[in-house]
């Protein structure tokens, strides 16, 4: 329905994982949005938990400001914690 608001959908794929954005649904209210999210995004066992958030509540960065926002990080690879030697018996890093 064109007059239904848009909701952003977040799915937790399994316990302990963070909810990840997977897409959006139209729905008249939050309860139906959850059901639409369930039927649209978790019908193949993709998740164990769902969040829906009104798309209007999301404040997004301005694509026109990309250079100022993101370019300064480009030449600062040392911010990646990849310069350490990890002992072999340390798992799940």
């Amino acid at each position: 329905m064109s007059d239904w608001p848009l909701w952003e959908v977040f799915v937790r794929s399994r316990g302990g994982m963070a909810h990840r954005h997977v897409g959006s649904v139209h729905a008249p209210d939050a309860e139906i949005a959850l059901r639409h999210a369930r039927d649209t995004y978790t019908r193949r066992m993709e998740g164990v938990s769902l969040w829906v958030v009104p798309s209007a509540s999301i404040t997004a960065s301005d694509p026109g400001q990309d250079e100022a926002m993101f370019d300064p990080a480009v030449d600062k690879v040392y911010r990646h914690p990849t310069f350490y030697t990890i002992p072999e018996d340390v798992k799940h890093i």
Partner: protein
Amino acid sequence: MASTPPIDLPSHATGAGAFDTPALDEGGALFEYLLRLGDDSLILGQRLSEWCGHAASVEVDLSLANVALDLIGQATHFLGHAGKVEGKGRDGDALAFRRDVLDFRNCLLVEQPNGDFGRTMARQFLFSTWQRLLFRQLLGSTDELIAGVAEKAVKEVTYHQELSGEWIIRLGDGTEESRRRIEDGLAWNWRFIPELFEMDDLAAFMAERGIGADLAGFRADFDAVVSAVLAEATLEPPPDQRPILGGRRGHHSEHLGHLLCTMQFLPRTYPDSTW
């Protein structure tokens, strides 16, 4: 003049009125009972599939298709089991696609046309409320397959019941048009409720053996759930109408034959084709 031999009645028939009352034996009754369970799910699953590509939004389209697939999955289990119980080499597909209309045992509610979204949701809510209570009771069935399917399906049906209940509430307590449509939908489907609770000889026979459900046992629960949802939807229950019965004995509305034409066309035209 040579005497003409009498027309042979089927061995299970008992003379006058035999069309309606086959004699009951354990195997035959179980077969019939499984057809009732399986055909309810199959026919409603097929009906809901007709919405595919036609709902008002892709989300509603998917939600209806999901319910349809759950129901067809239930039908696959029940009809497959029915075929084994019958022991004549028919599998679930043969029972679904090569039976004619008089041999279907679904209730009349599930074969009713979709109408608009209000009528579809009214039908779904009444059926799923009933089926949820039915499957809860069938969890204790002495037939292992029935109990097993009920255990899996009761979760699905709980969702169907909640989803359709949410829509009843929103349509009833929505706009003037949505309210009119759900009122019409409930009024249309209301006369098919008594059949859901009909305890005929077969139903009683199965219930006595602990295989089938005692339908009367959850009528009060059904009424309470329906009343609560209608109250939240600010709707009055429609006035009781003259009940229509007969689906369990193969006396169907005209609509079922048309549904079967669509559903059975492909397997009847290209038997045993695979892809």
